[in-house]
């Protein structure tokens, strides 16, 4: 057995109020540690009500100074919560912070076991493991890495725009990448916004213009991120700037090309399939930037090599058919993902008939219907484009709170349904039914808006709509869409004939969310939204340092929350930039080149290309800047020539022996 190192270890067992002490006999654990682990170097073992409190930390600091402790073990909550706290306490007392180990006896013992005796015994084993491990810890210094002040914001919706503006106004450069020809996101498609009924474009376009003209913002629209390498403070991002076939420096945005273009195409992105656009187009009038793009899939020139109308009529000769995609490489310190959401595909609910019954519309389609700049200039009409509906049914929770589709509540469809009810009333005077299961109007001035819509005479039916059908059974139903619903307040089945049905469909993660997550090294939750670092306390950060998320990409939310998250993410980025450098966990791998035989077995293991082979000396080398500390090569090296700080073989092997209480009984011969 290795000889007993003469470290002086302090053990501190936390009550955590009753969270731990309620199940684990903390006094017994402390006494046990003091007695049984003495020969390993435990000189003091205390228990205290709240170790993470300032008093608790002072306990540690006092002991380090007075008893000359060289190692500290705190048996309390999860290292993800208070590892930093106790490391700082040690640092204040002059002990290297990496000589502190946290033993989790709350999340992994007291909260999950009921038998008090067993929980206490397990806590002792966990403390023993931590003590054996901490003896093998070595002092480490955090790796200081400079932060590149530039920031990449992915997604030009309201959240992305807010984040970009906040950082740019603080004087730092932002690259704002947007997949569509113009920034604005889904909000640009709306007519009014709830609850204030502000015209969506009126409050959005000023922000878009500000972002479009801001000296510190480089707008990269009609572009997508292809590759991301590096780590916090030093990301290298490759962006594909798709060819617009329009020379931005010459184009004045006059729109003649769009006017003259003979090819009409259904616009199923901005107009949600209700309106048309030309083969060369800008998605909407207030588009930022104003430069149009040529849709190669539908442009006659690219299909048959003829036409070229846009080129002929362009006053400044800005059209350039053989413009190629361009790969732009940018260096940034932090990245904010504000990639937004996809609308739930209402066709999946086949009994609501969307896609089969003409007069069933989705929420985005209705937004375009009611929008003055929309295909019907704001007139709410049926699919024939002429007749105004006399009665309209608005169905909530389409695809949400439904175990066949999405379990979660999409937060905005209730208010969206109420907004539609108001707009239909205002524009057509039709009778409006809203079919809901719970009316969720939780935020500021939301419920007041619900009261107002009630007073306007909207008929609310509480019940989950079973079916929308056009099989009328009697004169009252002929030629109408019949909504079959169980009215739970009236307690009976009802068949309500209406002219038009609007599906207030829910929000869903982007179809490519998983791939985008993998591109930036973050994961998605089971529902598919980007996973935040902590659902309550850290919603805009992710588990990957330097990558932040904002807006609906993190989960369904309304515009005020998206804006708030955009600003929050930018604040997190600004505090990183102002620190000028970031301290990286000193968890790294390194090669002892004396022992390395150049067998190259580890060379293929590193996805971060941190492992390189020196042909001349036939040995392997690890670049500490690129190494992320996963330890795969440490475990793989057949010669045992690669060691890893923070999670070394000695530490883990010692912890195994400690957990199995092999260090307690004198080891038999």
């Amino acid at each position, binding site marked *: 057995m290795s000889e007993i190192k003469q470290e002086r270890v302090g053990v501190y067992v936390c009550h955590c109020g009753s969270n731990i002490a309620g199940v684990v006999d903390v006094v017994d654990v402390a006494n046990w540690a003091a007695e049984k682990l003495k020969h390993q170097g435990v000189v003091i073992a205390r228990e205290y009500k709240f170790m993470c409190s300032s008093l608790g930390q002072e306990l540690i600091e006092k002991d380090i100074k007075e008893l000359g402790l060289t190692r500290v073990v705190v048996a309390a909550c999860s290292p993800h919560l208070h590892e930093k706290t106790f490391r700082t306490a040690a640092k204040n007392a002059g002990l290297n912070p990496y000589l502190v180990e946290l033993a989790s006896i709350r999340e992994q013992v007291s909260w999950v076991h009921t038998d008090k005796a067993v929980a206490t015994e397990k806590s002792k084993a966990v403390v023993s493991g931590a003590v054996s491990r901490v003896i093998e810890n070595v002092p480490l210094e955090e790796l200081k890495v400079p932060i590149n002040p530039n920031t990449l914001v992915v997604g030009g919706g309201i959240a992305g725009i807010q984040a970009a503006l906040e950082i740019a106004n603080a004087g730092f450069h932002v690259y704002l990448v947007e997949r569509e020809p113009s920034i604005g996101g889904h909000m640009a498609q709306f007519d009014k916004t709830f609850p204030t009924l502000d015209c969506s474009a009126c409050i959005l376009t000023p922000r878009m213009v500000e972002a479009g003209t801001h000296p510190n913002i480089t707008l990269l629209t009609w572009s997508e991120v292809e590759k991301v390498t590096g780590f916090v403070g030093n990301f290298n991002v490759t962006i594909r700037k798709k060819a617009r076939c329009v020379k931005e420096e010459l184009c004045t945005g006059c729109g003649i090309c769009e006017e003259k273009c003979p090819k009409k195409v259904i616009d199923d992105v901005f107009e949600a399939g209700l309106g048309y656009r030309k083969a060369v187009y800008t998605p909407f009038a207030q588009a930022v930037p104003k430069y149009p793009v040529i849709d190669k899939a539908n442009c006659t020139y690219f299909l048959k090599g003829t036409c070229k109308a846009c080129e002929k009529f362009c006053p400044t000769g800005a059209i350039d058919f053989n413009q190629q995609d361009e790969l732009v490489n940018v260096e940034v310190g932090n990245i904010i993902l504000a990639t937004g959401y996809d609308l739930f595909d209402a066709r999946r609910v086949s009994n609501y008939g969307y896609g089969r019954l003409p007069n069933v519309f989705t929420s985005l389609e209705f937004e375009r219907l009611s929008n003055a700049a929309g295909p019907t200039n704001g007139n709410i009409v049926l699919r024939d484009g002429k007749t105004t509906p006399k009665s309209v049914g608005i169905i909530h929770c389409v695809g949400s709170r439904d175990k066949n589709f999405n379990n979660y509540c999409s937060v905005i469809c209730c208010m969206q349904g109420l907004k539609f009810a108001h707009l239909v009333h205002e524009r057509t005077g039709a009778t409006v039914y809203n079919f809901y299961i719970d009316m969720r109007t939780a935020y500021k001035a939301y419920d007041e808006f619900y009261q107002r819509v009630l007073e306007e005479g909207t008929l609310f039916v509480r019940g989950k709509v079973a079916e929308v059908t056009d099989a009328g059974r009697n004169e009252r139903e002929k030629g109408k869409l019949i909504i079959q619903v169980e009215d739970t307040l009236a307690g009976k089945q009802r068949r309500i004939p209406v002219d038009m049905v609007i599906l207030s469909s829910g929000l869903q993660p982007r179809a490519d969310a998983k791939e985008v997550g993998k591109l930036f090294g973050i994961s998605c939750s089971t529902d598919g939204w980007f996973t935040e670092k902590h659902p309550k306390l850290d919603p805009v950060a992710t588990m990957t340092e330097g990558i932040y998320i904002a807006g609906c990409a993190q989960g369904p939310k309304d515009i005020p929350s998206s804006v708030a998250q955009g600003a929050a993410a930018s604040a997190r980025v600004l505090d990183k930039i102002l620190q000028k450098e970031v301290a990286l966990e000193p968890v790294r791998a390194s090669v002892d080149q*004396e*022992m*390395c*035989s*150049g*067998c*190259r*077995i*580890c*060379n*293929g*293991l590193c996805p971060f290309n941190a492992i390189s*082979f020196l042909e001349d000396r*036939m040995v392997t080398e690890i670049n500490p800047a690129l190494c992320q500390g996963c330890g795969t090569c440490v*475990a*793989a*090296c*057949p*010669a*045992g*020539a690669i060691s890893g700080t923070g999670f070394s*073989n000695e530490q883990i*092997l010692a912890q195994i022996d400690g957990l199995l209480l092999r260090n307690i009984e004198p080891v038999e011969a």
Partner: protein
Amino acid sequence: MTSNGKPKFAMYWAASCGGCEIAVLNIHEKILDVDANFDVVFWPVAMDAKYKDVEAMEDGSILLTLFNGGIRNNENEHLAKLLRQKSKILVAFGSCACEGCIPGLANLSPVGEIVHTAFSTLSTDNPHEIYPRVSFDVPEGELHIPKLEPILRPLDQVVDVDYYMPGCPPESHQIAAVVDLVIKVLRDEAQLPPKGAVIGAGNSTVCDECKRTRNVKFIREFKRIQDIAPVDPTLCLLEQGIPCNGPATRSGCNARCPSAGAQCIGCYGPAEGVVDYGARLITAFSSVVDAREPEEIERILDGIPDPVGQVYRFNLAGSLMKAAKPAWQKA
């Protein structure tokens, strides 16, 4: 010191094949240096010294004892303890003493089964099923033979060992080098290495001395060397799908086997500071497997039909597990 002033030298062989003894002779004329500088007092294979002669010596009077072979029966254990008592420097000489070697593979089966296999299987003509007995009365008196220990143990699991000299057998040029070193120490021209050190070997692995070219390895199939015709003489054997233990085996033999066209089977034992040799090979071979789906990985791993033999051929007794479960149950 003996009467003629020369330090005493002893060599003993426990559970071994005698190859280590031959390797000592294999240092050719240097054997004369041994004779010139040492007084060989105990060397059962070479001279007829008796145990009681050794018991009569004073403790620590033998300067250098090269002990090869694992501890299989109680006689081995007795001699190990005796020589430990009598020797100043006790060297675990060769793979058997260091980590059990081929005899150590017996630890895969219970001891009863070993004896049964030895004395009454197809190849043994034993119609009356006569088995050895630890003691047996004959007219002349009571005969004794050593009793088998339940599992074979390397030397350092029985007595405290000063130095380890791996290899099956240790290379003669390494033995010669150690002899020279000890001679220099006698003349105070050199210092003994720290206690417990491995001598007569390198501090890297076989690949360091192997002349074959090595690239990044992506293995789709493991094959036995005889199934590959012809074997590329210059390319790393592992890259050709042959499970070669070189990457995890200590250097010192100038990659004798790979240079001769065969894969290294690991007789020089683990590299410096390695806790379990087999574990190093498990992680080495799985690191070069180029597959992600479990079924595909299993198909590739089927290319190593006997994983225990592949990764623990020489060091089962010296590994963390030491023996298979059946062997433990009846210990």
